[in-house]
């Protein structure tokens, strides 16, 4: 059963990676911005939820909702005050600004919270498990992560293809100038996209923070996993990103089963292998 367990573990881990990746994928898709601070913003969200539960004494769900609101506003303001000024044909300025932001957030968290490992407390939920079939039980928390990831992709797909906001997103992604002629406020669309990306990151942070302990230094690794999931899955497809996350989770689980030191390395090597064999990803969007 050990092999089967590894596969289940990998698939469930993939749910978390997909959640990391959604926010990154979202703003790259809409505004061609690669946010190098994405991983550290996930960590910032995790610490926000942590503070809301410990300092304010809120239950986890309420703390998460509060963090979603705070991070959405933060994303909106970040785009309006900072990122907007550096977006353009030159790819260097936005990369450097988000990289600077990554270093600032990471070290700011280190100053504020110290280097100790933390964890979000979810009570009995953390350790309980459900039995899917005789002899096969999975932890409730990892299962929730995967279900949440599927729900998040479904919700984002609905926003993208069933709402006027989604239409504005798609139009701006295709051609910002013409979208603006049609009455789309490009500045608002971008700011909402960044806000939405950070709001999704809160979900990723909560799901991750219940499962594993975190400290301020692990942000960049979250960025790399998110990125690998996006590229393995194929650019421009949210379901592809989910699949990419699961492939990455599987690679890490299998690598870790062979030798615990190889867990992360196996993920990176799988990414490089996909880049070699299928540079457009395993499930690219059907676009020219």
């Amino acid at each position, binding site marked *: 059963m050990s092999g089967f367990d590894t596969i289940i573990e990998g698939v469930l881990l993939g749910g978390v990676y997909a959640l990391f990746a959604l926010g990154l994928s979202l703003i790259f898709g809409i505004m061609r911005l690669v946010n190098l601070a994405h991983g550290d913003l996930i960590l910032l969200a995790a610490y926000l939820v942590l503070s809301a539960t410990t300092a304010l004494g809120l239950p986890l769900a309420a703390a998460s909702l509060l963090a979603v609101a705070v991070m959405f506003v933060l994303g909106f303001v970040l785009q309006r005050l900072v990122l907007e000024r550096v977006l353009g044909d030159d790819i260097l300025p936005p990369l450097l600004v988000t*990289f600077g932001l990554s270093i600032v957030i*990471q*070290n700011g968290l280190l100053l504020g919270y110290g280097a100790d490992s933390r964890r979000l407390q979810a009570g009995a939920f953390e350790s309980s498990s459900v039995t899917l079939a005789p002899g096969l039980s999975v932890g409730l928390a990892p299962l929730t992560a995967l279900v949440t990831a599927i729900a998040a992709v479904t919700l984002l797909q609905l926003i993208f293809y069933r709402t006027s906001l989604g239409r504005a997103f798609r139009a701006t992604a295709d051609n910002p100038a013409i979208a603006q002629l049609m009455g789309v406020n490009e500045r608002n669309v971008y700011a909402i996209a960044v806000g939405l990306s950070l709001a999704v990151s809160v979900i990723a942070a909560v799901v991750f923070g219940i499962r594993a302990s975190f400290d301020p230094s692990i942000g960049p690794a979250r960025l790399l996993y998110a*990125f690998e999931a996006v*590229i393995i899955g194929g650019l421009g497809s949210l379901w592809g990103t989910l699949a990419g996350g699961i492939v990455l989770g599987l690679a890490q689980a299998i690598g870790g089963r062979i030798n615990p030191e190889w867990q992360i390395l196996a993920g990176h090597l799988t990414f490089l292998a996909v*880049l070699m064999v299928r540079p457009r990803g395993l499930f690219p969007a059907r676009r020219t």
Partner: protein
Amino acid sequence: MSVESIDMPASREQRTVEAPVWQVRVGTRLSRVAAVAGIVLVAVLAALPAFASRNLIQDLIFVLTMLTLAQLWNVLAGWGGLVSVGQQAFVGLGAYALFAGIVMAGLDPVAAIPLAGLFAAVIAAVLGPLLFRLEGPYFAIGSWVAAEALRLICAQFKSLGGGTGMSISPSELSQMFGLKAVQALLGLRPAAARDVLVYWLALLLAVLVTLGIYAFMRSRHGLALAASRDNAAAARSVGVRTGRIRHVLWIAVAFATGMVGAVVYLQKARISPDAAFSVTDWTAYVIFIVVIGGVRTIEGPMVGVLLLWGLVTYLAQYGSLYLVVLGTLAILIMLFMPRGVWGAAARRWQMQLFPTQRWLGRSR
């Protein structure tokens, strides 16, 4: 520099057609003064170990190696458009190749330095075609992933200390090429003499890399590189082989970065995967130096590294706060002074010490 003539229609004054009317110029009078001043400065720096304290020499090793890394990143990302966040990969590979050369192959440390660069270049040549499949900004994270993978692979080598790293004992370095000569020349003990030797190597690398980049950017290849970044399709249409020039640049930068890594770790004499492949030490600082000093100028990294050195002296004791300040400064500069401190000054006072731009002027 090359002088290109443009045929002008016969003018009213019946100008003689043979003499070129327009000239493409790069140098200025100031740049010739700067060249002389640069030679004097390098001579002074070379003679410095004769009277400077060991602390200053160690500080200058830091300044010179960071300057070299900054120049290399500037040419790669600034001029070449290959915005890599994974240059720590080549510092780490160079450092590990040096240690492997000394410990496993019994090479002389000084001889192992170019071999370390070569090793980094070979890995870059293998990784390049893979990473170049990632468009523009995605290349940045891709290079970071590659660096992380290489860090984890280096941690697998138990004979090089595995995940915790290893040290080289001073006795192993005491037979190093040139060490006895430096000891005799300056009357120093082996540890201090090793610092001086490393300092000279760092100075040599900094001068060669800076001159190499300067010459490259003033050559037609430099123009071709800038054209590939600005508009790849247009550059190809006038015969620039954009893919090849970027690949060659990527490998050359990795070669030099690997040598810098080897020089840095020859002085430290202690290595670990986390330190040698540190994104903060070998990429974040380097990026901040270039951004604060000024992207796409030769002078920018020089100004940036001096500012960083000043900040280190006052703020390094605060650790994380230091990085928060540096990061915030870099973001503010990017927002309000995108050409950096040097770029803004050069624009304000119309001066360039090491000009790489070409402009068209009437021939005298």
